[in-house]
C-alpha cells in the first residue's frame, strides 16, 4: 500500500479560499469552493496559474495568489491557499484584495495588470 504525500500546492479538488471582495466569493454556501481543473501542463497549480473553481454550483475561473506549499527561497508561503476570482478575459470580479499578494506576480504584468491594480498589500 503506498500513498502519496500531501501535495500542498493547488490541484483538482483542493478547497481554496477566495480572497477578494466579490459577492460570489464571500456569500456563505454549504460547500467550500473547490478547484476542478488547473490550466497547466502538469495538474499542479502554483502562484500565477489559472484554475477553474466550482463555487455555489457555478464554474468560475480564478487566479492562484498564494499556496501552502513552500516555493523557491525568498518567496512568501501563505497559511492558506488563496485565490482571486477572474473572468475569461482576465478581468477580476471583485474590486479590492486585502490579503497580501507576492511581488512575483508583477513579472507577468501584462496578463495580471488589472488584478495587481486592485491589490492593496504586497509581500
Amino acid at each position: 500500500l503506498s500513498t502519496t504525500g500531501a501535495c500542498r500546492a493547488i490541484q483538482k479538488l483542493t478547497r481554496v479560499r477566495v480572497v477578494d471582495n466579490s459577492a460570489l466569493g464571500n456569500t456563505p454556501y454549504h460547500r467550500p469552493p473547490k478547484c476542478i481543473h488547473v490550466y497547466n501542463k502538469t495538474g499542479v497549480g502554483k502562484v500565477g496559474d489559472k484554475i477553474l473553481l466550482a463555487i455555489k454550483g457555478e464554474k468560475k475561473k480564478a487566479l492562484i495568489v498564494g499556496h501552502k506549499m513552500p516555493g523557491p527561497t525568498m518567496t512568501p508561503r501563505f497559511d492558506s491557499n488563496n485565490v482571486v476570482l477572474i473572468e475569461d478575459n482576465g478581468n477580476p470580479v471583485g474590486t479590492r484584495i486585502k490579503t497580501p499578494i507576492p511581488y512575483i506576480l508583477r513579472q507577468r504584468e501584462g496578463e495580471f495588470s488589472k488584478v495587481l491594480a486592485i491589490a492593496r498589500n504586497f509581500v
Partner: protein
Amino acid sequence: CRASGDGKSEKFQPPPKPVIIDKQKQRAERRFLSPEFIPPRGRTDPLKYYMERKDMIQRRKVFNIPEFYVGHVLAVTTADPYANNKSNRFVGICIQRGGKGLGATFVLRNVIEDQGVEICYELYSPRIQAIEVLKLEKRLDDNLMYLRDALPEYSTFDVNMKPVSRLDHEEVPVNELQVRMKPKPWSKRWERPKYNIKGIKFELPESKMKEAQKWSQPWLEFDMLREYDTSKIEEKIWKEVNEGLKK
C-alpha cells in the same frame, strides 16, 4: 556667577569620566558562533567547508549579519526587481534556522491582515540588503514551527515596529512564554516527546498526554553513535572566523 555660597571651598567638580565599554572584549567573552559555520557530521572533505567559510567571511566583511537566535523579531530588506523602489521589507519572527555553510536559511513568520505569511531567506544571498534585529529574545525551543498551529496573536508583529534598544551586552533574554494553540488537528503532533517542545501550554486531557508519552524514546540520549561533540571544532572555527574578520 554665584550670589550665595562659598566660592573657594567648593572646588570645581569635573564631570564623571565616561566609562568606555570595550565592545570587542565583551563580545569575545560572550562568544557567539553562528550555527551555520559548524560543519555537519559526515565524510565530506573538510576542504569544502573551509572554502565555504572563506566565502562566508568575505560576505560578512561586506555586509553585517547580526547575531540572532530563533525567536528574534527581524526586519529584512531584499532587492526585488518587481517591487516599487526595487526593495522589499519584511518583518517577522524567526521560527527556524536551517542549512549549513553558504546555503544557511532562516524562516520569518508574520500575520498580515489575518493571513499568515512565512518567508525563507538565505543568509548569504546577495539579494539581501539589510537585516535589522528589532526585538531580542530567545524562546524555550529551537524550532518555533508550532506557531503555525497557535493562535494568530502570537505571530503578529507590527510592520513599523521600532527596534527595542538593548541595554545589556551580556545576555540574551529568554522569553518563557507558553503559547496557546488552536483546537486540534495540528499540522504535527506537537505533544509527542520527539519534538521536545517546552513553549506550548497544552490544554489536552491527561490521558492524551500519557498516550503521547508512549512514543518517547528515552534511550536516544544515551546513544553513543549519535553523539557529535562540536566543542573542539567550534574553538578552531571561532579562531579562524575571528582572524578572517579582523583582516
